[in-house]
């Protein structure tokens, strides 16, 4: 009985939320949102930041501080998960190898994934993509070999080193602006020519830091889960 009561309460809550949000969004002008900030950013971004990809201009320029926070959320989650999983203890790895085909494919894929990840990170200010996406691809590059041959584990020590230095680099780039009397994270190094690889000042450097951090963090976290999972 108790279980039914809880389910009913949850369903009622969800139904109420849906009805309320439906009614509210009916009242809001669909497709004609008051884009005061949005419009202004779209018209000013290329000139102010030098980034051809406006999403990047917002992510690393106008709302760069949010992005630092988001990188941090990933870091907090990985640290918290690490704390909980370390209690479980890194046990014996599953010894069964992934088989010849998977192993050969993993070895072949590795360089391509690294190059693709690096490309997407380094072109984040020009084309869709960037540090988060490229970082996830980089993480896959290091995680797939682990699935194929579980006996050669990921080097957690190196991953943690890359992660720590990448996070530090983001903040140091931000703090550098304080030295010449500007606000935290003010872009520097000039804007360059719109659309060039070397443009948008320090924004690509931030994306590089994000890419390395996300990549090492994600690879480390997934490897940790595999290791602990192999134990139980």
């Amino acid at each position, binding site marked *: 009985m108790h279980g039914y009561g809880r389910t009913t309460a949850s369903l009622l809550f969800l139904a109420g939320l849906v009805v*309320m*949000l439906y009614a*509210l*969004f009916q*009242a*809001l002008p669909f497709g004609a*949102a*008051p*884009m*005061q*900030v*949005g419009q*202004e*950013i779209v018209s*000013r971004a290329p000139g*102010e930041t030098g980034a051809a990809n406006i999403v990047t201009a917002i992510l690393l*320029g*106008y*709302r*760069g*501080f*949010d992005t*630092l*926070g*988001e990188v*941090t*959320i990933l*870091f*907090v*989650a990985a*640290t*918290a*998960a*690490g*704390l*909980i999983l*370390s*209690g479980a203890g890194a046990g014996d790895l599953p010894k069964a190898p992934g088989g010849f085909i998977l192993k050969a494919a993993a070895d072949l894929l590795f360089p391509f994934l690294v190059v693709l990840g690096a490309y997407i990170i380094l072109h984040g200010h020009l084309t869709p993509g960037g540090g988060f996406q490229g970082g996830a691809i980089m993480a896959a590059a290091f995680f797939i070999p682990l699935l194929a041959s579980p006996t050669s584990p990921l080097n957690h020590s190196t991953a*943690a*080193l890359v*992660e*720590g*230095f990448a*996070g*530090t680099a983001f*903040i*140091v780039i*931000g*703090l550098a*602006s*304080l030295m010449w*009397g*500007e*606000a*935290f*994270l*003010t*872009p520097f190094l000039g804007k360059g020519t719109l659309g060039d690889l070397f443009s948008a000042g320090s924004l690509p450097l931030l994306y590089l830091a994000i890419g390395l951090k996300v990549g090492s963090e994600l690879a480390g976290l997934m490897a940790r889960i595999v290791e602990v999972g192999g134990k139980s």
Partner: protein
Amino acid sequence: MTSGANTLVLPIVLPLLGAFLLPLVARFGDGLARALGIVLVVVNIFLGWTLWSAVGTEAAVTALGGFEAPLGIVLYGDRLAALFVAVLAVGALIFWPRAEHGGVKAYTLTLLLVAGGSGLVLSGDLFNIFVFYEIVAVASYGLAASSGDKAGFGAALRYLVLGALGSSLVLIGIGLVYAAAGTLNLADIARLAPEKLSGTTGLAAFLLLVLGFGVKAELFPVNTWVPEVYAAAPMRVTAILAGVVSKLAMVVILRLLVLVFHDPAAISLLMAVAIVTIVAGEFAAYRASDLNRTFAYSSIAQLGLVALALTIPATAGILAAIAVALHHAVVKPAFFVIAAKWRGPLAGLAGGARVAPAAAGLFVLLALSIIGIPPLPGFWAKLVLLGGAFDAGGAYAFAAAVVLAATVVEAAYLFRVVARIWQPAAGAKPAHFAFSDLSPALLLGVILIVATLFVAPIGTALSGAAASAADAGSYVARVLPGRM
């Protein structure tokens, strides 16, 4: 923008930098990592103090990245923000985690909690506040589980589920505000709120934001995680979460009330939530079977008092909220220090005064202050709250009556424990306190007594902070100088 205001970012990014570096520093020894963490927390106390003395009535504002106000993200440092940056750091310093509960990872999470919490009170941008709220939330889940036992994992998991629900509600609330106002900057929203957020949309957004932030602020009905987590987490984590982190969410609700939501319906709604939180908290505390749960429920009731204070109009309400919150931040962690040693059913506390006279004496002092016996600071905090409520009249007089009735219940369950401690031991004696076990609580007891002696200057200082925090006009003028 003066270059001095640029340093406003430091209480957020220095602990963050430390958190990124800590796993690397730990290669040269855990002790070094611990030392670096503690140094950074001390630096944050200093930064909070510097900000407090630098700002006076005129708040410091910095536009991050050099992108001016409604387009970029701003930090707004007034005395209220400075106060909570410092209080959070002091709490983290006193209750820095022990090596056996999570080690370097727990140090890292504590630094992230300090960074995120400082961001929460300094940020002047609604979405940026959400980002910091998430950092604080996830760090809390990890720390809540750091006891490493099954009870801790279970409590942390349920905390995570409820917290995730809260974060989603906050996000939907922010979505509604953005859909209606088209901006995320708090000052810009404040400027547009009378026109865009006065109707049903605004009320719904307020409800969602209060419920979402209410998970951390321990408001009814999203506070069910509190007793379990506070009982299962390591004592030092419980002390920080109950003492300080819950108040940071209240600071966010305070900013929202001052700047954005003036609708009488929104105020009534928060008042109803606050009254239910107080009543439910005090009665649950009365029924609780052990000290940890008693204090967890009592903490809920105290945060209900803070929320109630926030509904009282103008400076009086904000002053009362800050006073009750600060008093609770001193008293409740000390209570949890005592509860950490005296676990188990309340009946087992008989003979406590004989085994540990210092702990028993401190318990009486804390109990008297939280009930509100003059001349202890708790009395002044409650007096400001009741005075503000009676001055406002109407429904506030009813709320004041609820507060008085709740105080009677509070006195009943606390004196019941005091009586138990002074009874002769029946069976097994309660645990003895080593000096190092009790020292954080003794330190807080000393702070309480010092505050009693300096209650007048503290009152004046807090009034100034409350007055500038209540001034929505100057907030908008400082952040958007060109648009007034």
